[in-house]
């Protein structure tokens, strides 16, 4: 029988694709023989827009680079501006930032769980985890005034004081989530049908992975305990106790298990933050010449660990009120091209969504 290669586009309008992007697949039967990633459905030109905005105006854009987890972008932006301008942030503001980052990480993991379970047809898990994420968003709403885009971590500190009783409510939510995580174990991580689909699929392994610039769960899923919070600490992460969970198999299931453990670590960090946060202290260091604030002609690079891997910002000032250049590198830039394309070859068509979710590929940070 003659076998024919056909080419199909997986996405951009496909429920299994992670965002507005597409993968062009050559198929021999059900098996992929070649994969090409295409982006460009979401290009908003943020980096260009930022070049003609003052620094506080640019601040409102950066959170929009990542929808599930905007806060690492805000933190990066603030850290880069502070480093260039030599601004010190108070301890209390740093604690609040860590808290926001960890809450966002927890929310992003819950959202990932919805996507990952959806890609194997376990709809119920997604319904639950989206609900639980909403509880985190409720807290964000009280804290920052926005659910998804918080625009809260500001160069010099954070924008608002904690509302009354916020830490107690957060603490209660953590108790609730802790219990829920056990339910998710039963329903999702230990679920035989998820194990059957995920084990041995999308395997990334070998010494090469470090050199190829991968980050996040891709590295931790194949045995490398790399986490910028520990390796290149920012904010107060060097004063907090947490573990970096790893797995050795390097497949979709290993990455899922890493995330499962990371959710527990986030809760652990948040509990420490609640216990250690100073009661008093300024939350905001006023920027000199607030609206006409200038950066010196220098450049810097900052990176934070997001829920999906390393987010790096390169920022160059030129002595004016505008930023000369801000270049964003999210984990997906590398993962969606130099990792995904070879990884899909030889896989079945039905595993594309599974693998993409597991790598945490998200186009907004590829094209900004």
């Amino acid at each position: 029988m003659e076998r024919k290669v056909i080419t199909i586009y997986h996405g951009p309008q496909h429920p299994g694709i992670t965002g507005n992007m597409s993968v062009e697949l050559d198929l021999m039967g059900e098996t992929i023989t070649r994969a090409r990633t295409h982006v460009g459905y979401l290009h908003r030109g943020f980096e260009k827009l930022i070049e003609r905005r003052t620094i506080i105006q640019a601040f409102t854009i950066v959170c929009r680079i990542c929808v599930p987890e905007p806060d690492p972008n805000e933190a990066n932006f603030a850290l880069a501006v502070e480093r260039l301008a030599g601004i010190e942030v108070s301890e209390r503001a740093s604690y609040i930032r860590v808290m926001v980052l960890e809450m966002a990480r927890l929310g992003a993991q819950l959202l990932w769980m919805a996507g990952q379970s959806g890609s194997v047809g376990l709809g119920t898990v997604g319904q639950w985890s989206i609900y639980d994420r909403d509880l985190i968003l409720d807290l964000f709403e009280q804290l920052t005034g926005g659910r998804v885009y918080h625009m809260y971590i500001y160069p010099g500190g954070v924008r608002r004081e904690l509302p009354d009783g916020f830490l107690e409510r957060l603490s209660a939510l953590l108790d609730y989530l802790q219990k829920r995580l056990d339910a998710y174990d039963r329903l999702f991580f230990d679920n035989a049908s998820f194990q059957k689909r995920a084990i041995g699929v999308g395997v990334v392994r070998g010494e090469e992975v470090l050199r190829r610039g991968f980050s996040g769960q891709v590295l931790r899923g194949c045995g490398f305990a790399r986490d910028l919070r520990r390796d290149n600490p920012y904010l107060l992460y060097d004063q907090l106790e947490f573990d970096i969970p790893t797995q050795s198999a390097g497949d979709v299931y290993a990455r899922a298990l890493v995330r499962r453990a990371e959710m527990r670590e986030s809760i652990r960090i948040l509990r420490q933050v609640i216990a250690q946060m100073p009661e008093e202290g300024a939350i905001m260091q006023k920027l000199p010449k607030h609206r006409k604030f200038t950066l010196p002609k220098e450049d810097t690079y900052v990176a934070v660990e997001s829920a999906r891997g390393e987010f790096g910002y390169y920022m160059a000032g030129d002595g004016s009120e505008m930023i000369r250049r801000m270049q964003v590198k999210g984990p997906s830039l590398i993962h969606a091209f130099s990792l995904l394309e070879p990884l899909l070859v030889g896989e079945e068509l039905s595993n594309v969504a599974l693998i993409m979710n597991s790598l945490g590929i998200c186009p907004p940070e590829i094209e900004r």
Partner: protein
Amino acid sequence: MMSYLEEHYELIHKTPRLFALHVTREQLLDTLHQITTHTSFDTLSQLTCTDWIEEERFELGYMLTNALRSHNLMLKCSIARDKVTMPSLALLFAQAEVMERELHEMFGIGFEGNETLYDFALEGWCDIPPMRREFDTLAYVNAHYDFREGREDNLDVKEEIKKRKAAAKSAKETPSGA
């Protein structure tokens, strides 16, 4: 690791964990080769480009990271804005391919040896590469998009203040003159 770099290059300490050094276009491949073999900076984690239009140069930044992900080293390389080709690093680092592809599209820099320099995020773009400083975003937007109707009654506040002052003045003068 640092001692090798200190010995052989003029290292700039930006922060305790971030270093930079300047290389020329010709030295780039050789320096990269030396650094990746003699130090642990062996991962390319970002490729940046800054347009210093007033100095007529692009500044490329090759951000290297070590295997422990604890330190960063940036190789900076200035190239002329008009003679814009660089050697590709695709053979050294697989991830360089897509980074170069992006810079090719956004700045119009050619990378010799990279086979994948086709469209990245823009489709069928034939204007000047958009991240170059001479590309005027505002003019582009005004040419391609409209403002919402009904906003024509926007007033210039400075003009209005002047008008009001003048009106107040003449109002004062009129009764005294009458």
